């Protein structure tokens, strides 16, 4: 589902965020991406989302070769990917419901269909009773779960998460990770960047380890 072939990313400021990274994440697989901060985890995820362009190498997501996509194709690529951010990126000027339904509005779902899907997504993350609230009124764990609901509401084939447990205590962290496992079980390909090594090790999934931009361990 996600394939990197000799991908490098060099920034003009003069440092290499990624050096010759190659790996394949199969459809339905769940993997953790780990390494110290600055090792290139975020850059790797940004390349998948086409928030950045690689300096060398090829990336394929699904059956789309990213180097072939034009600027106008990027939104359609992003619709096939769900993303969860460390700082959850919620909009505080609207309700939880409206936050989660944003991807559906963008894809053009009818309001009835969208409402059904939003409730299903909120149900999955256990926040169905919070739909009318402003996300500001929620705890950080709940905010993160709203972010996850938004990422999966349009049933993307790929789910990316950048430090989804960054601000959470261990118990909440594990809860969040279990959620990702659930989505993986129904066939979503999941790639989670995290430096919470103890938690990741306990979950026994594939681990891609980055160090100074190089992939030093896979397995």
């Amino acid at each position, binding site marked *: 589902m996600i394939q990197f*072939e000799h991908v490098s990313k060099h920034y003009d400021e003069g440092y290499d965020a990624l050096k010759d990274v190659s790996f394949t994440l199969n459809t339905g697989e769940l993997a953790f991406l780990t390494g110290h901060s600055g090792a290139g985890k975020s850059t790797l995820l940004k390349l998948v*989302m086409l*928030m950045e362009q690689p300096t060398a190498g*090829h990336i*394929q997501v*699904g*059956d*789309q*070769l990213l180097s*072939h*996509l*034009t600027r*106008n*194709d990027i*939104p*359609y*690529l*992003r*619709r*096939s990917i769900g*993303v969860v951010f460390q700082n959850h*990126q919620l*909009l505080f*000027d609207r309700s939880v419901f409206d936050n989660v339904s*944003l*991807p559906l*509005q*963008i*894809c*053009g*779902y*009818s*309001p009835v269909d969208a409402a059904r899907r939003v409730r299903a997504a909120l149900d999955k993350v256990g926040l169905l009773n919070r739909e009318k609230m402003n996300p500001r009124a929620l705890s950080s764990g709940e905010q993160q779960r709203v972010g996850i609901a*938004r990422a999966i509401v*349009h*049933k*993307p*084939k790929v789910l990316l998460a950048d430090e989804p447990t960054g601000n959470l205590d261990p118990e909440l962290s594990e809860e969040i990770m279990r959620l990702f496992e659930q989505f993986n079980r129904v066939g979503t390909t999941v790639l989670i960047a995290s430096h919470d090594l103890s938690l990741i090790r306990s979950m026994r999934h594939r681990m891609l380890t980055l160090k100074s931009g190089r992939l030093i361990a896979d397995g």
Partner: protein
Amino acid sequence: MDKKRGAERVQPTREAPVAQPSAKRGAEHHKVDLKGHSESWLRNHSEVGKSALAKLLGTPVATVMTVAVLAIALTLPGFLFTVLSNVQNLTQGWEGETRLSLYLETSLSDEDADRFSRSLLMRDDIAAIDYISRSQGMLEFKKYSGFGDVLDAMSDNPLPAVVMLLPKSKNVADLGLMRAGLQALPEVNEAVLDLEWLQRLDAMLAVAKRAVFVLGVLLGLAVLLVIGNTIKMEIESRRDEIVISKLVGATDAWVRRPFLYTGVWYGLLGALSAWVIVQVAWLMLETPAQELAQLYRSQFQLSGLGFFGSFLLLFTSVLLGWIGAWTAVRRHLREIEPR
């Protein structure tokens, strides 16, 4: 607006340089079918239009301030244009009374002069003629000038016979040509068009028109800038929303749409306010203008913006709103990318 939309897109398959020959472009994982698409597109437009208006009305003070600036900028040229068109209507009435005076050769006998004046009646560019014979002219001159004694002392009547013409054409250029043609006739000593002051007025009106036009363009530019700047600030304040929308797959057109609608609403609200101001101003002028016209026994009636003027005002303003928003969006939306 956005030609490439979701499920409709059919893109040629390109060979991938890496081993996957089936690599495709565009997005196929899209759950909205073709029929649902135009429907959802329309729905999105009406929703975005409504919510843009609701946002404007949700911040009434800021909106009223902006709309007031737009209204003033639109009222000025709108009002001046109607002033000009009223003045033009008025002078057109005057031009209708333009006369051409033909001073005939004094050598012409009374019968010849009379025959000549009658022959003029056959021409189809002349509505009416008034023939004043030499003796008739003499009588009138004596009566009105007070030089009767002097004239009596003269053995010969020095006055020429005069034919006053009422031309059918009211066009200044046509009248000029007609005058030249009549002047060339052998019976005519001199043809005089009493038009010079009207021509001057016309020239002044032309200058005024150009001035109002320049002012209109400048104020139109101001409208453009005001709306552009307002939209720019709006974009800044909604930066998070834009970034997140782009991250979850919003197209440029989708992101642009609310701002374009905001611009159009501003244009429309500005134009409506300007329209009301101009109409109220004319209503206030109507009674004194009518009194003035009565004093001059004129049938002149003030006309406000009228249907065409109102349409032009609304259309121009909405267009300016849209263009202002578009330029702001073009300049600033590309800068806002998820990082």
